[in-house]
Structure formats: C-alpha cells, structure tokens
C-alpha cells in the first residue's frame, strides 16, 4: 500500500488488538462518560502510527462512539442535552487553545518538553481531581448512604445561588438556573484537558458533579454529549490537514460500539456512587502510570542525569502496562457491577412473579 508515509500497513493482529482496546475503552466510556482515549493513542503509536495520526484517528472514532452512547443513555433519561451543548461549545474553544499551547511548547522545548508537559498535566490533574473523587467515593461507601450524591454539595449550592442577570440558563439536570459564566470556564477546562491528555472527562464529569451539582449518573451521560461536540470539532481540525486514518478509527469504533452499549446498560443496575468509584480508581491508576515516564523526559531535557536507552524503554513499558491495567480494572468493576445487578434484578423479578403466582 502506497498512500502516505503517515499511514501504516495494517496486520490482522494489529486490527484485533485495536478492536479489543476499543471494546474495553468503549465499555468504560459508556459508564463514566469518558476514558479509554488515554490508552488508544499510545496503543496506536506502539504499532508505529505517527503521534498526530494516532490523535486524529482517536478523535474520529470518539465522536460517533459518544453519539451512540449519548443516545443510549438519553433513553434512560440520564442526559442533559442543553448542558452538554453549552459546555461542549466552550470545550471546543478549550481544545483549540490547548492545542495551540501544545504546539508552542513543542516548538520551544521539542518532543521531550511536550511529553513532559503532558505527563505533568496528567499527574497534577489526576492527583487533585482523581484523589478528590476517590475520597468522596470512599466516604459515601463508608457512610452506607450510597444515594447521597444525588444532592448538591455546598460548592454547588453556592454556585446555584449566584444570580448574574442576562447569563442565567435553566438546566434540567440540576433543576435550577446557573450562570453561563460558570459553565463556560468549566467547559473550557474540559476542552483544554482533552487537547492535553485526550480525556477531558476527567475534569468535565467531576466539575459537573461538584461545581454544578449534577447527579453523577447525569454528569457521566452528559459528558458523552460534550465528547461528541469536541470529537466533531477535533476531527474537522485534523481531517482538514489529512491526518485521519479512517481504517484505524473505524476498527476502534467497531470494538467500542460493542463496549459502550454494555457500559451504558451497566449504569441502570448500579448505585450512582459507582460512577465515582470507577472514575477515581482509573484516575489514580493512570496517575501512577504517568509518574513512571516523567524521569525519562526530565533526562531527555537534561534536567537530571542522563538515563540509558534500556532504562528509558523499561520505564515507558511499565507506564504503558499500568495504563492498560487502569482500563482493565475499570472495565472489570463495570462488568462485575453489571453482572451482579442483573442477577439481583432477576432474583427480585422471580420473587415477585412467585408471589403473584401464589396469590
């Protein structure tokens, strides 16, 4: 095949690999609204796909996947379309600005500088936000009141009490008006993170839950609308320069659409705090993954003593393995919760039928 140096020859093994990673990524996305993308880009790059083509192809699979997931979860009444579109529009601006910053860093500090920036952003965001989400999930679990997160926290109540004339918009998910001057920066931060670490939802979902007071089930479903808007914009941006490898995008999509259906169905069987559990566990595990590669980039920039090629390769492999582990753990929790929920539901259903028959 001789089309462009940007596009690799695909093998059957490579296709199966991408299909499986797509499936697991889709499963997690269907449940928490995002995730999976952080593994897909490095997974494609490990097959020899140039970085920009991997990012572009990831974007091109993301928007149709998010669309299917959002439509599925809208059927369950979990999507706040207006909030998704409002945040999606500002997220789009955040994506463009985030990409601009990335380009600037790459121009000034080279690939190692750009990679270091991405890894540091990963570690800081995941440590702060992931730590908070995880702590909150543990607190709810220990309290035994697993329905608790359906009520807005103190920050969200304060935000909802702010009235700025001419900027107030009513959102169904919180049954209250919130100023777009609050939603715009949240969406912008989501987009910036998406352009930096590929998973805007790690800021988008927690910000909707804790800052706006959106129930976790609705926040994770609404994130799919934001991901759709960002995905379309991102695909246009990259396809305009011809970087999308449609084959890669469609193979990942093939797997992820199987996964996203199960993830979405899973949300109907679990208690809302499980969204926080899965999100927190994935974020904290990915945090460790990125921490392993920071010394590699510091060494490449000459900020610490130089490392041998073998050591750098080892650290990169450990990092990639932990990333895959994060996704597998997340998917495992979702599947376990789904199977358990379906079994309990079946038992309850059986008991009711027995009682009716006895009458």
């Amino acid at each position: 095949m001789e089309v462009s140096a940007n596009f690799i020859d695909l093998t059957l093994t490579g296709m199966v690999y991408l299909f499986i990673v797509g499936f697991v990524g889709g499963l997690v996305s269907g449940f928490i609204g995002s995730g999976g993308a952080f593994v897909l880009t490095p997974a494609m790059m490990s097959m020899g796909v140039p970085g920009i083509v991997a990012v572009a192809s990831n974007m091109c699979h993301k928007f149709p996947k998010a669309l299917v997931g959002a439509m599925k979860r809208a059927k369950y009444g979990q999507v706040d379309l207006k909030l998704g579109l409002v945040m999606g529009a500002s997220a789009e601006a955040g994506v463009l600005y985030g990409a601009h910053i990335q380009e600037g860093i790459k121009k000034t500090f080279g690939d190692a500088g750009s990679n270091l920036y991405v890894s540091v952003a990963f570690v800081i965001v995941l440590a702060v936000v992931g730590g908070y989400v995880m702590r909150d999930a543990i607190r709810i679990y220990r309290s035994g009141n697993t329905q608790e997160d359906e009520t807005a926290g103190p920050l969200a109540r304060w935000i909802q009490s702010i009235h700025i004339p001419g900027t107030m918009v009513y959102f169904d998910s919180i049954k209250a008006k919130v100023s777009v001057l609050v939603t715009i920066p949240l969406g912008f931060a989501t987009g910036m993170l998406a352009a930096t670490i590929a998973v805007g939802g790690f800021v988008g979902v927690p910000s909707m839950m804790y800052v706006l007071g959106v129930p976790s089930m609705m926040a994770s479903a609404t994130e799919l609308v934001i991901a759709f808007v960002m995905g379309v914009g991102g695909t246009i941006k990259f396809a305009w320069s011809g970087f999308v490898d449609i084959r890669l995008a469609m193979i990942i999509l093939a797997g992820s659409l199987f996964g996203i259906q199960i993830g979405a169905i899973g949300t109907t069987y679990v208690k809302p705090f499980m969204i926080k559990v899965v999100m927190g566990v994935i974020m904290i595990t990915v945090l460790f993954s990125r921490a392993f590669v920071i010394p590699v980039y510091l060494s490449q920039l000459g900020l610490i003593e130089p490392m041998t090629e073998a050591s750098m390769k080892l650290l990169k492999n450990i990092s990639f393995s932990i990333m895959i582990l994060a996704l597998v753990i997340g998917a495992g929790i979702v599947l376990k919760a789904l199977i358990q929920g379906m079994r309990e539901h079946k038992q309850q259903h059986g008991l009711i039928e027995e009682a009716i028959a006895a009458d």
Partner: protein
Amino acid sequence: MANETQPRSQLARTAIMGAVTLALYIALFAFEEHVLKLTAQGKWSFVIPIAIAFAISYFHGAFTGGFWDALGVKAKK
C-alpha cells in the same frame, strides 16, 4: 433464548443492521487505498471521514444494541 427476549422482527432488524455493517467494513478494506487517498486529501474532503464515521456508527450502533439485547443484556426497567 433469543426468541424469548426479542420479537422476531427485532431480531431481523438486528441481522440486517449487522449485514449492512459488515458490508460497509468489507467495502472500506476492499477499497482501502482509494478510501485513504480520498480521506487524506485534507481541506474540504474532511467531510468524507466524518460521513463514513456517521454511516458506520448508525448501522453498527443499531446492530450492537440489538446484539446485546438478543443475548439478554438489557437495561433495568
């Protein structure tokens, strides 16, 4: 099991969606070089990968939904 969980018409619809999806994927890879040339042109041809993604997601999305439904993996009512 499938007949218990899904009416026959729904199963037929899922099968049709699956067949169309498969046909789209076969076409994508049978004309791989040509499709890549079209999608990698850049500029206004950005609509081609987007149209392909929408088309495949429509049929494949419907198929995967029906597929899990047929296997009894359904949302809680």
